[in-house]
């Protein structure tokens, strides 16, 4: 029998029994979707994990993140004391400042009381919605948690650029739709605002580019809206983030003590955290998550294989008599095997592509903040997903073929004998 004819018969039978084929494809697709979805989760988690791992090794526990902030100790000279404090901090023995941002932001609390805010109309800006403004994704970072801890939460360069261009850089807090609206309203009439970062409720900074401004999904963050102090000089609330390193010879605790003393001297309130400690927590929980995910993925692979193989075999059993007729007409078991192989490959490939597509879509949908986005366009991950798919396609095609080859024509012809 010519291979071309074998292919024609395979395709023919797919369409003749379109409901069986559709059922087989549907069953396989479901498991494929689950598999790919989980794989993507796994990879995006691995990304963060690898990063944390590298940072912990590089940093050796000497990096601190200090948040300076106050309302209670506020007095006329507070703003001026902070630069002084920073200068002295830099000259402290055993301590080096990292490339962190030193711009003091004024915090405008209680947005609803703000005159500007009251003018807000109902439209949520599409500009900062990733889905509606895919341009934004160019600025996506993979893992903002760790980036922010390192003190590169918002881009100092961007900050300066924005300032130079006459726009006002803003750091935002929670309740995004309001913030976005505010941003929009503030931007249009007189002043041009640009969100360059945001803050979560544990005072961690994030770059604006890592935010997905999803109007339906408001992340729980601090309700702050911050602009450089000069734009809201009347505000008596501010936050200031500083990062420093303890140098090679200095223990973190010893350095911390010195920094605390210095802060007291300047009458400044500090909240200082060893980055490594944050990392360690993240690291351990990540490791646990990864192990659990790996286990789950392996079981899903097994289930996927099983469901693809068995649905292909069951669909063969549905048409035993037809296979018997082929054999009675002289089609050999080898040729029949090829026919089934071809059919199974088509079916599984269809489910694979569907699963791939739906899995990725689902993953994207579920990631309000698209931290796994990088994972999707990574060639290595794509290759892993594709080769896993190929293995599944082959296995789920080879087993039914073997199954066919082991049957005697008589087995299929029962109905006629």
């Amino acid at each position: 029998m010519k291979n071309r004819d074998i292919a024609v018969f395979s395709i023919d039978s797919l369409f003749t029994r379109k409901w069986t084929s559709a059922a087989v494809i549907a069953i396989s697709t479901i498991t494929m979707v689950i598999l790919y979805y989980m794989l993507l989760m796994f990879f995006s988690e691995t990304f963060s994990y690898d990063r944390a791992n590298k940072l912990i090794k590089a940093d050796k526990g000497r990096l601190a993140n200090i948040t300076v902030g106050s309302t209670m100790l506020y007095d006329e000279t507070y703003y001026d004391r902070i630069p002084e404090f920073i200068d002295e901090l830099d000259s402290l023995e055993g301590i080096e400042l990292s490339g962190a941002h030193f711009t003091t932001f004024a915090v405008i609390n209680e947005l609803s009381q703000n005159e500007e805010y009251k003018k807000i109309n109902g439209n949520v800006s599409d500009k900062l919605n990733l889905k509606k403004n895919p341009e934004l994704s160019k600025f996506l970072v993979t893992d903002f948690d760790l980036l922010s801890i390192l003190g590169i939460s918002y881009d100092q360069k961007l900050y300066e650029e924005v300032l130079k261009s006459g726009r006002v850089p803003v750091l935002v807090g929670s309740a995004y739709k309001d913030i976005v609206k505010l941003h929009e309203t503030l931007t249009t009439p007189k002043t041009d605002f640009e969100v360059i970062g945001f803050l979560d409720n544990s005072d961690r900074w994030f770059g604006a580019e890592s935010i997905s401004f999803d109007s339906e999904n408001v992340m729980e963050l601090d309700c702050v809206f911050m602009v450089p102090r000069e734009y809201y000089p009347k505000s008596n609330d501010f936050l200031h983030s500083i990062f420093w390193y303890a140098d090679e010879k200095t223990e973190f605790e010893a350095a911390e003590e010195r920094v605390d003393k210095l802060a007291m001297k300047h009458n400044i309130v500090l909240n200082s955290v060893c980055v490594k400690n944050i990392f360690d927590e993240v690291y351990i929980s990540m490791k646990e998550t990864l192990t659990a995910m790996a286990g789950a993925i392996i079981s899903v692979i097994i289930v996927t294989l099983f469901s693809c193989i068995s649905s292909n075999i069951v669909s063969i059993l549905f048409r035993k008599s037809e296979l018997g007729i082929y054999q009675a007409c002289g089609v050999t078991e080898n040729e029949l095997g090829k026919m089934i192989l071809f059919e199974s490959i088509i079916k599984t490939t269809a489910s694979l592509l569907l699963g791939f597509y739906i899995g990725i879509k689902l993953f994207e949908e579920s990631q309000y903040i698209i931290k796994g986005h990088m994972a999707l366009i990574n060639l290595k991950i794509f290759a892993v997903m594709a080769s896993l798919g190929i293995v599944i396609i082959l296995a789920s095609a080879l087993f039914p073929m073997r199954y066919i080859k082991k049957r005697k024509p008589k087995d299929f012809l029962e109905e006629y004998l």
Partner: protein
Amino acid sequence: MIKLVDVSKDYFTGGVTTSALKKINLTVEKGEYMAVMGPSGSGKSTLLNILGCMDSLTGGQYFFDETEVSALSVNRFNKFRKENISFVFQNFALMNHYTVFENAELPLIAKGVGKKQRKEKVLAALETVGIADLEKKLPMNISGGQQQRCAIARAIAADTELVLADEPTGALDRATGMGIMDVFDEVNKSGKTVIIVTHDIEVAKRTNRIINIVDGQIV
């Protein structure tokens, strides 16, 4: 042409062994027209399956012309079936979703015959069995007798030495069945060896030789 030497066939199911054929010896000459008769469960179908290379034997030897079929490798055995044997079944065994023409064409596709030649052969075969005008119909739209004619046309088109039929008239009324036997007469006259399993003596009488199987043995 066919020679069975001490052929046995045992079935093993659930630890129970059934001897369907017990040391059968049988010679069939080329061009013979033969009926196999016997009560239900006596082993007629089993014999036909073995002759048709649909099943392997558990003992003895099967010669087809110079070839010892029972000694062939699985692949050669399957190819041998393709080249030399055609079947006609009680339930017609037609593909429901293929037309009469396409059904009759199947064995030729299996053999890798070219399209043009296939068309010639199939049309000629349909002509022989008298349903040339139904070539575009689906099996479910024609009568049982016509379906069986289509099945025989398929065997004719395949152009094999040996044509085997298992109760080909079993699902048809007497008159229609006799019409089918007319077709088998034609097939045999064209030089093919035809073996028909039946328990209808009238059908058997149309052939030139009748063998009886009882309890797995020829009597």
